[in-house]
């Protein structure tokens, strides 16, 4: 062996490219069948036997244990799309894989990867420009129906697809209610303010939207009232157990009677605190720690609902929603006494304990400050609920994006086909080698309508050809009436092309733009790789010694 050798494996040039791309395509094939309204779900079983049933690309990919490094890039891509946009995770993976497949063919035909990459970048720029100038529609022009349609579109591929009319209304209402204006003066729609609870039983149609926040717990003692109107809420981030000195502190007493006094004092401490809280006017007390039984009695007597072991994140959210302050201790800076200010209390119009299914829930309705919303999902079993949760989350994100960016595009392959036709024309205006790469991008985009059609068991070639004709007409015709043809996409139920703007198949523009960006960037990242080195695990000292000995022995043999 000559020259420098590397401990480990190494792949170079075309080999590594092909291997990477095969892996990526393999991964895309896994999620391919889950795209579109006729897409199906995957059942993922882990080694313990826990089951996840899902249609969400990001969830599928993150649950799979992907080993191949290039494939891992794609998994991250899906996660990124999930975080940034929340929807369109499957299509981004499929698109990236298709782009890579075609890039590989170009490279095989002796076009340098950098040329391909440059072409891809240029195509991306053109596409985004085109989407922004020609394909987006402002939501104001369409109103609330557009929001509902968009929510529905994102749900159509999921298990809630057949109930999408019901859920989309719920999602849009929830998002409209959580509208807030942040201190920068911008209107925000935080998805986090929509709390999703899952309770099995009943059917998905009995899921409900509650104007308020809900906790999955019962009140601390059965003697407390089940509902309180005009609630004043105290949030307490310390426990109301018997007071105890910190570890390591010892109290030395001479007189045994004092011992008893200490014991009483311990209880009195907490009693005083409880009374202070009650006296401030609080009638609902959330405590992050425990509440001792003896302390509960005071709450019961005062007719206060006390909740113990509320998770701190729930408490913070309730505190912001009701205008309460989370109190971490009661000490007063001016005097050495403790006090609980009434200004720390938050308020809401109704606090109520209700039983849903077999579990108690505490509802906070009519919150004073911000509007939290709670969606309680009902359904046949846990797997079903988890999947509905994921679907609703996606839809919430979609609605948020639309509300914040105010722009939508048509779905059902309309945008992709339109871009493809446009890029094809655009490529012909170039004189450089990038032309080839750009027309490949144009072809790759068609994978989305194609996959949609295949998943619906329709004739993909025929339908996509028809679509292309429509879009070509819309882009070239002078006639204004033909311009509307740009909204034509697939109707997967009847196997036809139709105006998806009218049919209400809508997606947020930002989701399309982002997914194109992510797909192309990921493709470029993988394409840039021309050498893969897998470092072998480091040898220990012992191993090295043994190796050296073996080598020495071998050499010795050669010598003699």
């Amino acid at each position, binding site marked *: 062996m000559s020259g420098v050798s590397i401990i480990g494996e190494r792949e170079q040039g075309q080999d590594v490219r092909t291997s990477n791309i095969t892996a990526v395509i393999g991964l895309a094939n896994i999620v391919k069948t889950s795209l579109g309204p006729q897409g199906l779900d995957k059942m993922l079983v882990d080694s313990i036997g826990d089951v996840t049933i899902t249609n969400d690309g990001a969830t599928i990919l993150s649950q*799979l244990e992907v080993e191949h490094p290039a494939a891992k890039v794609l998994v991250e891509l899906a996660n990124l799309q999930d975080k940034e946009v929340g929807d369109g995770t499957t299509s981004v993976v499929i698109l990236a894989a298709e782009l890579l497949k075609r890039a590989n063919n170009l490279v095989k035909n002796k076009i340098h990867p950098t040329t391909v990459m440059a072409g891809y970048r240029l195509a991306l720029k053109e596409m985004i420009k085109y989407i922004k100038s020609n394909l987006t529609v402002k939501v104001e022009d369409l109103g609330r129906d557009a929001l509902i349609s968009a929510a529905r579109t994102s749900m159509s591929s999921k298990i809630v697809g057949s109930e999408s009319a019901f859920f989309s209304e719920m999602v849009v209402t929830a998002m409209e209610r959580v509208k807030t204006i942040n201190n920068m003066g911008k209107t925000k729609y935080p998805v986090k303010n929509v709390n999703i609870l899952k309770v099995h039983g009943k059917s998905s149609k009995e899921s409900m939207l509650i104007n308020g926040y809900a906790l999955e717990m019962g009140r601390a003692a059965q003697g407390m009232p089940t509902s309180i109107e005009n609630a004043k809420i105290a949030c307490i981030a310390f426990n109301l157990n018997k007071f105890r000195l910190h570890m390591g502190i010892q109290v030395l007493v001479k007189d045994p009677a004092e011992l008893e006094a200490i014991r009483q004092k311990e209880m009195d401490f907490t009693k005083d605190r409880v009374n202070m809280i009650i006296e401030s006017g609080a009638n609902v007390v959330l405590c992050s720690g425990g509440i001792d039984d003896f302390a509960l009695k005071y709450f019961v007597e005062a007719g206060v609902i006390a909740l113990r072991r509320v998770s701190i994140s729930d408490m913070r959210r309730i505190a912001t929603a009701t205008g309460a302050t989370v109190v971490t201790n009661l000490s007063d800076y001016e005097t050495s006494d403790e006090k609980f200010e009434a200004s720390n209390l938050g308020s809401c119009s109704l606090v109520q304990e209700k039983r849903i299914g077999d579990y108690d829930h505490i509802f906070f309705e009519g919150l004073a400050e911000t509007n939290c919303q709670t969606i309680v999902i009902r359904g046949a079993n846990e797997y079903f609920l988890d999947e509905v949760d994921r679907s609703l989350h996606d839809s919430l994100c979609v609605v948020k994006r639309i509300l914040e960016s105010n722009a939508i595009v048509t779905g059902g392959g309309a945008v992709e086909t339109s871009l493809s036709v446009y890029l094809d024309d655009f490529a012909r205006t170039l004189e450089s080698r990038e032309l080839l790469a750009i027309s490949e991008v144009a072809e790759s985009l068609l994978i989305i309508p194609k996959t949609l059609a295949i998943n619906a068991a329709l004739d993909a070639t025929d339908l996509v050809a028809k679509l292309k004709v429509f879009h070509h007409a819309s882009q070239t015709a002078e006639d204004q009436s033909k311009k509307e043809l740009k909204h034509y996409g697939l109707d997967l139920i009847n196997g036809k092309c139709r105006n998806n703007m009218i049919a209400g198949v809508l997606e947020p523009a930002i989701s399309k733009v982002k997914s194109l960006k992510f797909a192309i960037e990921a493709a470029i990242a993988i394409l840039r790789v021309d050498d893969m080195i897998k470092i072998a695990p480091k040898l220990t000292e012992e191993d090295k010694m043994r190796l050296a000995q073996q080598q020495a022995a071998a050499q010795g043999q050669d010598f003699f």
Partner: protein
Amino acid sequence: MFANPMRQAPVMVLQNNTKREQGKKAQLSNIKAAKAVADVVRTTLGPSSMLKMLLDPMGGIVMTNDGNAILREIDVAHPAAKSMIELARAQDEEVGDGTTSVIVLAGQILQAAEIFIEKRVHPTVVVNAYFKAMEEILKITEELGVDIDVDSEEDIKKIVTSCIGTKFSHKWGDLIVDLAIKATKTVLRQSGKEVEIDLKRYAKVEKIPGGTIEDCTVLDGVMFNKDVTHGEMRRKIENPRIVLLDCPLEYKKGESMTNIEMSNEEDFKKALESEEEEVRKMCEHILRVKPDIVITEKGISDFCQHFLMKGNNITMIRRIRKTDNNRLARVCGATIAHRPEELQEEDVGTLSGLFEVKKIGDDYFTFVTESKNPEACSILLRGASKDVLNEIERNLQDAMQVARSVIINPKLVPGGGALEMELASRLIEHSKEVEGLQQWPFKALASALEVIPRTLAQNCGGNVVRLMTELRAKHSKDDGLWYGIDGNKGVIANMKEIDIWDPVAVKLQTYKTAIESSCMLLRIDDVVSGMKKTKKQAAPQQEEEPRPDEGHTFGDERDG
């Protein structure tokens, strides 16, 4: 290095040990698994059902015909089968009855879809048709519901009787029915429009082997497995004044670390005395409210017993459960107190008429009965063996749940498969209006509903084919609505005449759960298994019943 560059090693995207099942194969294997689960419980449907005997690894026996109880014990590996088992649980927690029907129905519905999958009909078509059919089913079921008068004992009795009819305890006729109705009515609490029936917390079933079934009663109060702490205490008190505590009546050190420094013998004596003094004080506080009985969740020291018993003739019971204490508080109208020094007159419970400790078999049991307006109760079950008692308890739980469902939603539908038959015939009629390919799965679902009467007929040994044809003929006529299978005789009968009814709530839940879950399983086209568990996603399950104080009792629950 010399390897042929054309021959590449296969690119591994996923880990080696992951297994995949795709497409039709996955769908068919899911259906098969669901069918297998349904077959396990099939014979336990209806009045002529058989029990199952399940042996657990520890050698314990469960004998039951409750679908949920059977499936809970079975350990399955197939993910789809797991999902089926979840259904029984959801049904049990939501309505408490119909667990077997839901499994049998779901199995049948999936089986009905099998032929479509074989014929390459797209699963989403089947799923959409199923959802459509479900809507129709729910509509018809609501329509057919017959209103009943909740206040009339007879009406409720009818329905609970037909629920019990399929169970083991059916042998004892009205006995269990009466128990269930009485218990449910006892815990019913009405505040305005809201009806609260918390069977889980306030209706406790106590099983004592021995005696005869006829000895089973619903107490107008509660009982628990405890004896007075000292043999000489009064065991029978009329119109007792009861004090409930959840603190120990013995000397207890404080929470903070305290040490006593003793310099001479006197100090030691003094320390002991002051301990005694503390307990004495505690006792005096208790004496202030002049109770006849003191019951605490914690321990009672010998000294305290002596003090309260000798001079004041007070009966004491220690270490009862928190849940028992809660029930007791509701029965006798007492408030559970923690600090003896804060006892007030209002905290004393005076509402119950009789306190009595009885010896049944080898154990002592405390009864607090003859309460004026008990809002909690204990149900005392007697019977030959523990296994029989366990089964009666399960039956009773079902019956109480049914009674609860009826009181909350007072509507009935005919049982004995009559409703399913009617639904089937109406849906088949309706299917002619369903457009396109969906017509077939719609029809198939309709026929799948017939599995309930068919299984009933099978289980009672009737001539299945003849009965089913006859029944179908009856239902095709306008006045055939009430005809179903009389599971005892194996003939067709008018359900109205022989009084076989089911609550609408139970039936609705059965259809919803069965159809929704089948749809979920049908949508799966890829099963990936064998991944390592990476993240813990599922939130910890809520505990069945918070029992924060169980730790403080010292292990011996049964002392007394």
